[in-house]
């Protein structure tokens, strides 16, 4: 009898999960499968073209030192951007979640989300206006500081990092905010009653309890930034060639879809590998 009830419950759960799985199937699995297929072809299977199955696209990555170097550069940028997002985002989230109360909190949270509603291209492009030589930033600094200021930030890796941090920091703010505002106020009060000052409470209570949110935020930033191409292209100029822009080129410029697909899978594998390698340490700090 209990068995039947259990089976009915499982059935209900499946029925409720079905839409999610169907969505995953169509939106994630099928395109991914198509890309996996492309990555094994010698050429695009178009009319009048010869093609056969091959691993040459994957070998191309190893044959040229340029690809691993670019991948390394992308991962390095992703790590720096993730770190900066955490450093900038956590204090924001802390103030939002634990200092500000009532209506102004909602307003500030809205301001954090606002960038998501503007066009990403516009957002990034506005940085080029700010950073370009003699641009808004240079002009503003020249006005307050003596002499002509030339930061020379435009078309450097720094510009790319600035743009990426700006685009992705809301993810960290939101995930950290959610984790922080879920912390029971009585824990903070208990710590204070035990004699702990602000710094100790931050270090021993707030940070460890918000860690899951910070890690979620870090993953949400690291993964897309490792493959990003728009910000590097617009803000990096000649210095902006990354693994992401190379992949994009294969798809939109040189029409070498198989190579682009293979490079994408290599990136995916490396990122998954990094997350897998980091996960025991993460689980330990969370457990």
């Amino acid at each position: 009898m209990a068995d039947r009830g259990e089976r009915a419950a499982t059935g209900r759960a499946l029925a409720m999960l079905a839409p999610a799985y169907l969505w995953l199937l169509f939106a994630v699995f099928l395109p991914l499968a198509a890309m996996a297929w492309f990555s094994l072809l010698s050429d695009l299977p178009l009319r009048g073209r010869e093609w056969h199955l091959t691993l040459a696209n994957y070998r191309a990555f190893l044959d040229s030192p340029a690809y691993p170097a670019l991948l390394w550069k992308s991962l390095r940028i992703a790590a720096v951007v993730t770190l900066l997002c955490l450093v900038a985002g956590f204090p924001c989230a802390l103030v939002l979640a634990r200092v500000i109360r009532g209506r102004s909190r909602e307003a500030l949270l809205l301001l954090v989300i606002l960038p998501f509603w503007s066009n990403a291209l516009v957002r990034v492009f506005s940085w080029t206006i700010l950073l370009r030589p003699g641009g808004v930033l240079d002009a503003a600094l020249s006005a307050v500081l003596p002499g002509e200021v030339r930061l020379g930030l435009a078309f450097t890796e720094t510009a790319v990092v600035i743009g990426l941090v700006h685009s992705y920091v809301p993810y960290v703010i939101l995930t950290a905010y959610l984790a922080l505002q879920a912390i029971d106020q009585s824990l903070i009060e208990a710590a204070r009653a035990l004699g702990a000052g602000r710094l100790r409470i931050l270090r021993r209570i707030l940070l460890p309890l918000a860690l899951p949110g910070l890690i979620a935020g870090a993953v949400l930033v690291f993964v897309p930034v490792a493959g990003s191409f728009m910000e590097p292209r617009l803000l990096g100029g000649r210095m902006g060639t990354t693994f992401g822009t190379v992949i994009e080129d294969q798809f939109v410029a040189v029409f070498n879809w198989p190579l682009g697909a293979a490079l994408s899978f290599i990136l995916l594998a490396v990122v998954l590998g990094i997350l897998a390698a980091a996960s025991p340490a993460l689980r330990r700090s969370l457990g």
Partner: protein
Amino acid sequence: MSGVSVSGLVKAWGPVRALDGLTLDFPEGSFFGLLGPSGSGKTTLLRAIAGFVTPDAGTVRIGGQSVDGVPVERREIGMVFQSYALFPHMTVAGNLSFGLEVRRVPARERARRIDEALALVRLEGFGGRRPAELSGGQRQRVAMARAIVTRPRVLLLDEPLSALDRGLRTEMQIELRRIQREVGITAIFVTHDQEEALTLSDRIGILREGRLVREGPPRAVWDDPGDAFTARFLGAANLFTGTPEPGGLRLASGALLAGPPGRTTGCLAVRPEAMALSPVEPGAPNALPGRIAALVFAGATVTALVEAAGQQARVTGAPSAFEGLAEGQPVWLAWPPGRAAWVAPDRPGVATGK
């Protein structure tokens, strides 16, 4: 170990005066129970002593010294929260160690004191567990141990047992009392359960609308509640109003109720368990004719609601005392004059609590 005293405490939130000129002494080493209806300011008082609430006026003294302007973290208090507020990401030992690390107690001494505190709450060997791996009663014990391991000057408990079920609660009451005695610390605790307050406390204080209405040893407050509010709040006493005369209280019906000698003012309060019912007129003073409106069975006791002298009186006793009585039956209500108490009547226009 120190006593606590508050004087003239005022705290207002908008139009609400949570504390309204409260003055109260918590003697050194005593277990002090704070009682009062919901919203009477018990939590606010406790939080003002702890330092979480800054009073608008008045002074809090711990060990004779004013702690006004001293932040919570430097008041040397121990606090037990209703939700226990154990740090979920630390082990039991980690929770206990926290306050000791703040005080820079060396590691060896820390370990010794943690063991000592765990032994005191009878949780030897639980140091490695996480709060999530403990039962409600065990969490309560850890919260107690954490609050006293730092050897605070005063222990503050806001409804510490209200999250426990009845059986466990009685057990923990005894434990709480034992631990407090062994440590000898001044403890102030808030409770909704008057029985709990009466059993545990050396002294109790009754709050109402941010003011102290009665304070003293439980027995004294019980026997002589002082005013109608306290009499009703503590033990649901029956109140008779009328005209006080030298011999007692003259009811509107003309009957004379004899009260205890001495002060003959206000109204007479009689506890439900002091009254007895009989089907025939007893040859004793303080006998009122009435009718049983309802009989309520509660296991060990039965409560009868009796219509008498134009009001409803509660009579509580062992089930055997109600044998042969039925709802709707005319009865006589009687009590020994010495079991009644003179109390001040309600101030007009003041809502009665509970």
